[in-house]
């Protein structure tokens, strides 16, 4: 019979994944239960990993107080460019596809809500435009304005990230990063590791595959609330922004007159 796994071994197995060392108050109970059931290290490691990825890392009992977090200047929009000097673990609080208008998303959510996307109940509401002359399949002769938005996957995505101290910083995909997307693909509360050297421009982290590792996981409550309130949130946002523009726009018109 092998030696029972120790706390140090368990911590080590997690840090090799790039995770910061969790606090012993988080790990010890998991280890204890594992030992009682004589679970091998591998099994305990898996449990600890899942628990950590589903945890809210801003809670004091999860990570060590010494865990690296964003420097206070990170979200300063006046700094054109700075680099993170250590690996930072963050959790995703919000996600947005910047290539789609909110209205587009609202219409899609609405049609889903009305059951129009259910199999056998689909309704086709919009026929892909045939403009630019009645199209034949003329290679890319279409203006690149319309042709460019290929690959329905969309993106780049913008994420609201939070470190273990609770600081919130936006980040967006400078280049496509695997596994970033809308729930359920990537859950809210998903853990992301920002590697040392990641560039922060005007308060936003530029996400690139070389320096961004999506570790997975989600925070159950947050994820549920995000999904359920999404259409309502988008509608309020669109209304608010539209009112703001209207106010500003009116001034412009006044000036012209």
């Amino acid at each position: 019979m092998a030696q029972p796994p120790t706390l140090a071994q368990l911590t080590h197995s997690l840090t090799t994944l790039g995770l910061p060392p969790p606090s012993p108050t988080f790990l010890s109970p998991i280890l204890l239960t594992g030992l009682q059931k004589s679970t091998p290290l591998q099994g305990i490691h898996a449990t600890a990993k899942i628990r950590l990825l589903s945890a809210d890392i801003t809670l004091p009992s999860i990570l060590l107080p010494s865990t690296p977090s964003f420097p206070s200047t990170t979200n300063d929009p006046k700094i054109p460019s700075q680099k993170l000097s250590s690996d930072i673990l963050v959790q995703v609080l919000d996600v947005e596809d910047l290539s789609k208008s909110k209205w587009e998303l609202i219409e899609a959510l609405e049609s889903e809500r009305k059951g129009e996307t259910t199999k056998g109940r689909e309704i086709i509401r919009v026929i892909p435009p045939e403009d630019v002359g009645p199209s034949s399949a003329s290679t890319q002769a279409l203006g690149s304005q319309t042709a460019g938005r290929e690959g329905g996957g969309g993106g780049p995505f913008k994420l609201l990230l939070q470190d273990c101290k609770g600081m919130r910083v936006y980040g967006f995909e400078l280049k496509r990063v695997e596994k970033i997307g809308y729930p359920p693909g990537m859950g809210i509360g998903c853990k992301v590791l920002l590697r040392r050297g990641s560039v922060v421009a005007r308060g936003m982290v530029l996400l690139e595959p070389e320096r961004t590792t999506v570790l997975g996981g989600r925070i159950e409550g947050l994820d549920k609330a995000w999904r359920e309130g999404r259409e309502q949130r988008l509608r309020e946002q669109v209304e608010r922004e539209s009112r703001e523009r209207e106010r500003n726009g009116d001034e412009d018109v006044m000036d012209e007159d």
Partner: protein
Amino acid sequence: MPPPKKILCVAEKNSISKAVAEHLSGGHFQTGNTGNQYIKNYTFTFDFGPPWGNCQVVMTSVSGHLTAVKFDDEYERSWDNPPPEALFDAPVQVKVEDDKLPISNNIKNNARGAHALFIWTDCDREGEHIGGEVRTEALKGNPTLEIRRARFSNIERAHIIHAAKHPVNLDERQVLSVAVRIELDLRIGYAFTRHLTNSLRPLGGPLSVRPDGGRRVISFGLCQFPTLGFVVDRYFRVKNFVPEPFWSIKVTHRRDDINVVFNWKRVRLFDRAVVVILFERCIAAKTAKVIKVQEKPTSKWKPLPLTTVELQKNASRFLRMNSHEAMAAAEVLYQKGFISYPRTETDRFDPGMNLRALVEKQTQDNRWGTFAQNLVNGAFKQPRQGRHDDKAHPPIHPVAYCAPANLRDKEKRVYEFITRRFLACCSDDAKGQATDVDIQYADEVFSAHGVVVLARNYLDVYPYENWTNSVTLPKFTLDEVFEPTEAMLTEGKTSASSYLTEPDLIALMDANGIGTDATMAEHINTIKQREYVYTRPKGGGGRGNHAPAPARGAREGRGARAGRGGQGRGGGATGAGGGGGVEEFIPSTLGVALVDGYDKMGHEISLSKPFLRKEMELKMKDICEGRLAGDVMLRESLKQYKRVFDLSKEQLNVLKASCRRYVLNNGA
């Protein structure tokens, strides 16, 4: 020698009957009157070949459907009693309509003494059913008649003679499928129409009296409601739309006196801060690097062979007529023998067809004759093969040449379109050379695209499409590094899609399985007549969408999707006219109220949505292909609709509330 046998031929309309008589008799026939002033009997002899040989022929016609399904009289007297729901299972009878009795008698009389009946109704489901009606009447006059069916898809001489000599049998499944549909239309249409009218009239105002003073009937049709549903849905999409700003980066580089525009691969993003950051990074990078240079032959494909739906869509786009008018003109052209049967889903020609011979007939025209001659001389190419085949008719094509002087204006335009489309199909794709240059500027990729058209080919005969040279790109070399002349951060605003136009509506009906190619135009016409929708010339407020619109009131629904709408008049001018003759559909308040009401009742299956009707269409296909029995379909569909009927009776108040809100303007 025995006396010649007698054969009775019956077509769907007199014009077809006459055209067929002319071909079979070589122009030598006698014309006799019947009890219907529009229908004649043409008498002549024709050699059908074995086993019939030379026969005495009487060629006559019906005038569309001969019979109608009717409820017993007690159901016709009052709309309240028996109650509308009784119509779901009240007895019905098939009757020859009173005004069709002379036609029926003519058939019965001529069936006496005849050896065979040849049915010449149009070769589609509806025509097959009419053939069945003709058979029933003829057998009443002569129970021993042999029944045959002529199969044809145009009225060209050789084709007609071939059809006469190679008759087939009536397709019983098609006859049955139409019979089922007719009964469903009757029962469901009557029940809902009576229920709606009885319930809504008491609300008064326009719900009780029409603008012209007549009593309002709120008519329900299985296809019309979903069609109306599309119009209303789009209307609200346009009305509720909120424009949103977006930003983009545009890079221009001047070389060899050419301004090359590089478009951003990300096209546009809806976050200003992000675009500003990316833009700053480009500026900071100073130079861009060429990461792809690709020159390759490119082509613009010639169109697919013409289907009914495509004809209808193109008619409103290019021929300044709606689908209803286009089909009427096509019908005349077909009856005169100039084009093939105009109701077809097929977009591929049978490889056995002699298309060159058809092209050759067009060489005498002074508009496209030279082009046709050129095809005959060797430029002919086999048309592309689409994916649809209704197994009954070829794509719409000209079968004989017709000089423009012999046609009325609309027919002329439709004939021209069909012929040009056909010649385009038999020609070669347009060929060009495309150049793509991609550059990387900071982390962003931009691309420029150029095309040089080398051979226009089919475009020379098909002015409905165009392909122009875009910029010729100057020379760029892979890995070359240069400093772009200009980079700009641009701003734009999303605009609402436009109200539905007729081509849009046809495309939606087609995509969602509402109606058949043959009936779509009628359904559209019906919802107009019933005052559920009206049309107006398109382009009410189309501003060019490229202009970085000075932000104005946020909620004026702008009527232009990218590229359409405002085009005609050169950008800039606000609300000038719009694209020649295309009309857009706006629902009436009544139309909105009906759809809104049914949607709000929360039926899992709303009547304004296409599924129920689509299911019916699929079941009819199943009957035609032998997978489903007619009485099963009848039972299932009636049960489904009866359930919806019961639900909508329970929730009548919801519908009434919508009517009060939209039609009577309470609390609008």
